């Protein structure tokens, strides 16, 4: 035949016997297996002991806190911090709520355990983490209920990676989770943080103001970005008939902490994405709102704060960077509503 698509024929059993003795190859195999097992177990043991994300799994008594890092991993340490007895959960839609401001308004020490670009699956895991690391029952939990919480999918799939292993109740999940390159990269920084005692510690209350970043990217002035604010859109979540598994899961979880006040916050959005009355988007929005309102009605010490209603502040473009990310002036108003709701629940 033509050689055009021919391939080399290889005698399948053609690995040539090496001159080295079988004993040397046997020693090679033992060397490989023993080294791999020893290094793997040793590295995992070290990771377990230095507790790279301050989860409290280690038997050692280490310096509290973690170095500055993203909220997805830093929340493990913050969520265990007994200096706080209340917490904020959700994504960037509640990121601007200030623990300091809430503390000033309510007298309750708040920590922000939000994870940007996360949904109910991540939120529920973080709430569980926070609740199970209290010595005293938590005083309040605030949850940002945006459209992601309206999903009908019981799996509540997450869009962006999230370290579920870090917050797992299973020690095996945690140990397997330590087996990742990120942990190796964390070793040196963690050891410096622990041994010198001088490394910078991540902000304890988890607050991070996104305003400078948005302003740096021109969201307050760039004509195209300002114009994008005025485009009519939908934000109802697309699930008018239910079920709403996130509401069910949240209720089940919060029932483990009956004394804790629960604030369900439907975060503000720019008026251009508020549902148009009579539309399918409005039906979906109402369906989801009713599910969480029913939760609030059933559960003691629970309130729903609904900022997804047409009000003058939501028509002011200077109070928004984009259609779902508001500025500090709105955050102050929301904080005041939360403080009032908590006062009413006492």
């Amino acid at each position, binding site marked *: 035949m033509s050689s*055009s*698509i021919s391939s080399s024929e290889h005698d399948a059993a053609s690995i040539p016997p090496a001159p080295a003795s079988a004993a040397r*190859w046997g020693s090679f195999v033992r060397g490989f297996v023993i080294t791999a097992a020893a290094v793997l177990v040793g590295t995992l043991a070290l990771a377990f002991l230095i507790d790279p994300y301050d989860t409290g799994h280690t038997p050692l008594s280490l310096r509290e806190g973690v170095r500055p890092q993203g909220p997805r991993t830093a929340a493990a340490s913050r969520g265990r911090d007994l200096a706080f007895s209340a917490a904020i959960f959700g994504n960037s839609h509640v990121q601007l709520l200030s623990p300091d401001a809430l503390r000033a308004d309510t007298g309750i020490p708040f920590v922000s355990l939000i994870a940007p670009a996360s949904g109910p699956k991540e939120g529920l895991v973080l709430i569980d983490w926070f609740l199970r690391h209290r010595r005293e029952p938590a005083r309040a939990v605030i949850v940002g209920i945006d459209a992601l919480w309206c999903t009908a999918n019981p799996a509540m799939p997450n869009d962006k990676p999230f370290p579920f292993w870090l917050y797992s109740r299973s020690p095996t999940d945690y140990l397997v989770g330590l087996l990742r390159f990120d942990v190796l990269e964390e070793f040196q920084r963690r050891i410096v943080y622990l041994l010198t005692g001088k490394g910078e510690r991540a902000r304890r209350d988890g607050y991070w103001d996104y305003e400078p970043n948005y302003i740096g990217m021109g969201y307050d002035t760039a004509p195209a970005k300002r114009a994008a604010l005025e485009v009519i859109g939908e934000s109802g979540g697309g699930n008018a008939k239910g079920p709403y598994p996130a509401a069910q899961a949240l209720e089940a979880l919060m029932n483990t902490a009956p004394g804790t006040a629960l604030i369900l916050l439907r975060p503000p959005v720019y008026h251009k994405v508020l549902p148009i009355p009579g539309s399918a988007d409005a039906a979906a929005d109402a369906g989801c709102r009713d599910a969480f309102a029913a939760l609030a009605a059933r559960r003691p010490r629970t309130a729903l704060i609904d900022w997804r209603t047409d009000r003058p502040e939501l028509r002011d473009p200077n109070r928004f960077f984009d259609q779902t990310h508001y500025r500090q002036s709105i955050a102050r108003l929301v904080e005041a509503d939360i403080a009032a709701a908590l006062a009413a629940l006492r």
Partner: protein
Amino acid sequence: MLFNSFAFLLAFLPLALGLHWLVERFAPRWRLSLLLVLSLAFYAYWDWRFLPLLAGSILLNWLIAEAFQKTRSSVLVTLAIVANLAILALFKYFNFFADLAAMIPGLPAPRLELALPLGISFFTFHHVMYLTDLRRGQAPHYDLVRYGLYIAFFPQVLAGPLVRWREIMHQFEERPYLRADAAERFARGLLLLTAGLAKKVLLGDPLAEYANPVFAAAAAGQVVSVAEAWQGTLAFTFQIYFDFSGYTDMALGLALLFGIVLPQNFDVPYRSASIQDFWRRWHMTLSRFLRDYLYIALGGSRHGLSRQIWALFATMALGGLWHGAGLTFVAWGAAHGLALIAALLWRRAGLPMPALLGWLLTFLFVTLCWVLFRATNFEAALAIYKGLFGLAPIGTGFKWRALLPAAAFAIIGPTAWALVNRLPPARWLAVAAALLFVLILFKIGEDANYEFIYFQF
């Protein structure tokens, strides 16, 4: 389960090796049965619902071979081959042909939403190879366990290599751990597994981050700049090599751990100085299959030039279709067929081709063709080609850091197979390989862990 997963590397493999060693040592007559059970368990781990398909196809083909032994009726074998191809067509190509039919006005074109059973393209070809050779009187009949293991042997069942029965069956009869070179084989198996994992995880996967966004943008109808198009195309060119050849190295290494030597599948293909040389070095066992069971059946080179040209084109176009149920894959195969025909005519005309120019032309052609292979449709491919040929904005931010080591390894070589066969049994090497293996385990633990590209074929 993926070879590059904890479930496989830390659970299935140690357990399988332990059981295999025990059985090989104390009850060797059960060794093949154990390997078959392990292989079926490995396959079922993906989706147990597909296990009856694999087991059923083994049983039916074996029964037909049994019947052929008694009746010598070649019609039986022909029917069996047709049935195998029909099942493959049902799962893999039904919607492809339905969509083609839908282009004809008035013709009803029902669609079937069937999940593609993993490895079906590969185990179908294994059946075809054996049955064809059985009909030719070249292959003997085997018992059900041996035949089942030939088809389902877990290192090869999902993505090859395509192994001929005569390459593997005699090895089943051995006591692999009693061989004089048993330890050497085991050690080289560990090295090949580690090398394959390194190629996949350390070289191939980082390139996915260069290629995926570019092809996704093209699929979304966005303009792809010159810089992005070259970044994405070059990245995929090397990604698919390290992904697939890395998989093959792992398969070969794993088989060696169980005392079986599988044929190699790659031989530094991006060093090829001609397109026919490329197909001698790329997916070698598929090239071999296409040559022996399709190209020759279509007439090969013994019935004149025009017949040979037709056979080449048809073989490559069908080879393209085998890779995926889409016209882009057919176009990819057809383009390679045309290039092989051009090279054939060039050779026949006695025209010269300097080696360096031949390499450059071959590499460029193969690279450009990968666009058809990777793009989700012709519109997306066109968007990439516009960028590649300068019909788009120049763009900025060409990412090259992960491309450099990949290009160096892929073009300069050597292959992992050749390298591993040259390494001595030095203790420092065992330690270094073990450290690399552990490092890879930590990389596998990251969230961005990619499946093998060839699993979809």
